[in-house]
């Protein structure tokens, strides 16, 4: 007795190949590439909105804190140029982390919540001849690419806008390993949230999640400077943006205190694994329901 042919191979986690045929590994990549191309094409159609969302926040923050404030005598970092430059440097690392985190989270979570519950596009896409896990992974990879782009945009903003110099000294091995890890973690968090959220609760995301993540994410201050408030210093350790901000400080500046690289890599890897597992499970639960 042979198994009945299935029209929806992706609905089973590991579709059985026909007898005598092996499922080539390349096909997974081909499907992944196709899905990525599809998402990028959709993004290309709304490029203006994407650029607006990506550039506006870092541009405004850098403009206000490192251009406008020093000019109107409200510069952060005291009266000395060294203090102002130090703050500009601290802020730049935090902004890169914030850009990565928010782009990764929002670009995955919001469309996913809508695609699952409103447009039900994902139901159509699970017909693709691949596993549901591959589709969930593609979502993370797509979010990570956008997250990486958002991080890259902060560099020219911070290079040309501030009135005070930013003393950037790149540690390339750290930057080139930490950035992809942080982007992947952000997108995986986005996948997790996207599979949990209902479309009606999406507007709440900025108030209930984004703001606490941002203000508790060591973006405007170093984690070490929370020493006088120990309860907060330990509470913010559950926030992945803390490790991204501290990691960017380690990668881009010298003489600026930051967590040990072991703690940064360890925590981000842990978050990436946990969010990927939770996101994959949630994705399967939602699309196969």
């Amino acid at each position, binding site marked *: 007795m042979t198994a009945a042919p299935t029209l929806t191979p992706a609905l089973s986690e590991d579709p059985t190949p026909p007898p005598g045929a092996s499922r080539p590994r390349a096909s997974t990549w081909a499907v992944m590439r196709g899905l990525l*191309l599809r998402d990028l094409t959709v993004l290309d159609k709304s490029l203006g909105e994407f650029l607006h969302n990506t550039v506006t926040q870092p541009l405004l923050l850098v403009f206000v804190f490192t251009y406008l404030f020093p000019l109107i005598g409200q510069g952060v970092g*005291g009266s*000395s140029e060294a203090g102002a430059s130090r703050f500009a440097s601290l802020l730049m690392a935090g902004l890169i982390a914030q850009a990565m985190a928010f782009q990764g989270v929002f670009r995955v979570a919001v469309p996913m919540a809508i695609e699952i519950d409103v447009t039900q596009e994902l139901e159509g896409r699970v017909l693709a001849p691949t596993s549901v896990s591959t589709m969930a992974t593609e979502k993370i990879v797509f979010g990570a690419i956008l997250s990486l782009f958002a991080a*890259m945009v902060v560099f020219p903003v911070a290079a040309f806008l501030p009135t005070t110099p*930013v003393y950037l000294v790149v540690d390339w091995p750290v930057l080139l390993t930490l950035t992809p890890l942080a982007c992947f973690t952000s997108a995986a968090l986005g996948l997790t949230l996207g599979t949990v959220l209902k479309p009606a609760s999406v507007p709440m995301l900025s108030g209930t999640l984004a703001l606490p993540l941002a203000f508790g994410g060591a973006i405007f201050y170093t984690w070490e400077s929370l020493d006088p408030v120990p309860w907060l210093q330990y509470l913010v350790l559950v926030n992945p943006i803390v490790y991204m901000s501290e990691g960017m400080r380690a990668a881009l500046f010298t*003489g*600026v205190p930051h967590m040990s690289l072991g703690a940064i890599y360890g925590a981000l890897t842990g978050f990436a694994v946990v969010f990927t597992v939770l996101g994959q499970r949630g994705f399967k639960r939602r699309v196969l329901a």
Partner: protein
Amino acid sequence: MRGIWRLGLVAAVAAGAFALAMVRFSGAAEEGCAQRLPEDPSYRVQWSQQPSTDLTRYRLSITREGRPVTEAEVCLNSYMKGMSAMAVTDRGREVAPGTYEVSVTFEMGGRWPARVLIAERARPVVAVPVLLEVREAPVPTTSPNF
């Protein structure tokens, strides 16, 4: 790929802007004494007096293996521990063989981790870490003069 040519163009522009930013950043760190440098334990830096919030000039005696370091470029870079954006920096001027003067104002008393960057002729540039205990000077009390 034809469907994403605009996206490709934007990515290329962003990559170009990133490269330009790195070029602009490249010289700034040196100006601000913020290079990533190896530490060398053979150097010793001694302060002429304990740093205090009411002083603005300090003399640093710099030696390497017990001998004064002369005709070097010296730069001090320090920040206050626990304060995200309180920092001082200055380049030293040699006022006597092996003695360099810096003008900095520590705005608050407390711990100020510092790095003294030393560039001797024909030797690699090194950083010497120093932990400064800055004394909070008493605020002068003056009677109101109506």
